[in-house]
């Protein structure tokens, strides 16, 4: 097996350049998909027969919820790679993820709450899914707080990587336990959209938004990654070309 690609991937100059090249390829499709999804979701899609126009919150809520989970997985995977193979670039990826992840977790929570008020009559219920999402936000906060608490970048990288990996093992367990927790009490059972399948003109915008948000994350990640890589390179010769 040829491992050169792996080393190449781990080399900061290469990653810096690659991320720079990739950014527009993620960014523009993301813009297109999000705009199309918005138009489809807000204008073309018909009102829901139960929820009227209120259901349109789904087009921001579901993508951000999906993104939050995806970002955590990305972060933890990168942290694991960084920890095991001592790859600085992987730590840089993990560090870049946390902030974005916390934002989108918060967005999914707040949009969910805004949706919950008209649907359930209250902003907050202790539903398993909501609770799990709140815990995810706390995990992101914990990760960021730990990072901010340690001055030395290398130490911060590795300490927070341990936390992310532990969280990776635990997140599914938390999810499962929280589901189980509420299954024993009477469930609020309002979380369903009330219909097995979604009509195409509702579904397509949602898929477009999911795609758009994912690409958007990739684009922002690339930019942040470049910044992180620069921050981590102390006195490498390639920096001169890179900055100019």
């Amino acid at each position, binding site marked *: 097996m040829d491992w050169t690609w792996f080393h190449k991937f781990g080399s900061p100059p290469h990653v810096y350049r690659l991320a720079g090249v990739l950014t527009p390829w993620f960014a523009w499709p993301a813009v297109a998909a*999000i705009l199309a999804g918005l138009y489809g979701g*807000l*204008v073309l899609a018909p*009102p829901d027969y139960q929820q*009227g*126009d*209120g259901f*349109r*919150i789904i087009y*921001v*809520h579901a993508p*951000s919820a999906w993104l939050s989970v995806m970002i955590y997985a990305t972060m933890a995977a990168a942290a694991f790679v960084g920890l095991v193979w001592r790859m600085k670039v992987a730590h840089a990826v993990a560090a870049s993820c946390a*902030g*974005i992840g916390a*934002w*989108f977790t*918060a*967005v999914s929570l*707040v*949009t969910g709450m*805004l*949706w919950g*008020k*008209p649907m359930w009559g209250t902003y907050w219920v202790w539903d398993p899914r909501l609770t799990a999402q709140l815990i995810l936000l706390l995990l992101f906060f914990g990760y960021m707080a730990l990072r901010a608490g340690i001055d030395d970048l290398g130490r911060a990288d590795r300490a927070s990587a341990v936390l992310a990996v532990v969280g990776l093992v635990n997140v599914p367990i938390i999810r499962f336990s929280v589901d189980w927790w509420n299954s024993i009490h009477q469930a609020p059972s309002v979380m369903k959209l009330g219909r097995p399948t979604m009509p195409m003109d509702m579904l397509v915008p949602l898929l477009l938004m999911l795609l758009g948000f994912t690409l*958007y994350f990739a684009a*922002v990640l690339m*930019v*942040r990654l*470049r*910044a*992180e890589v*620069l*921050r981590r*390179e102390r*006195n490498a010769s390639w*920096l*001169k070309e*890179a*900055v100019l």
Partner: protein
Amino acid sequence: MSEFLAMGGYAQFLWPAYALALLALVVNVVVARRALQAARAEVARRLAMQDGAGE
């Protein structure tokens, strides 16, 4: 148009949700670009310092 904005009575929930999502999208882009610019400036400063010291 105003009908569209009213969103069938859900405007007070729907638009804040969209506004927040938009805010998140914009803020993350801005933060990322700022970070990149700052990192570049820092590298440039260090390189200038090294050059200065090397002479």
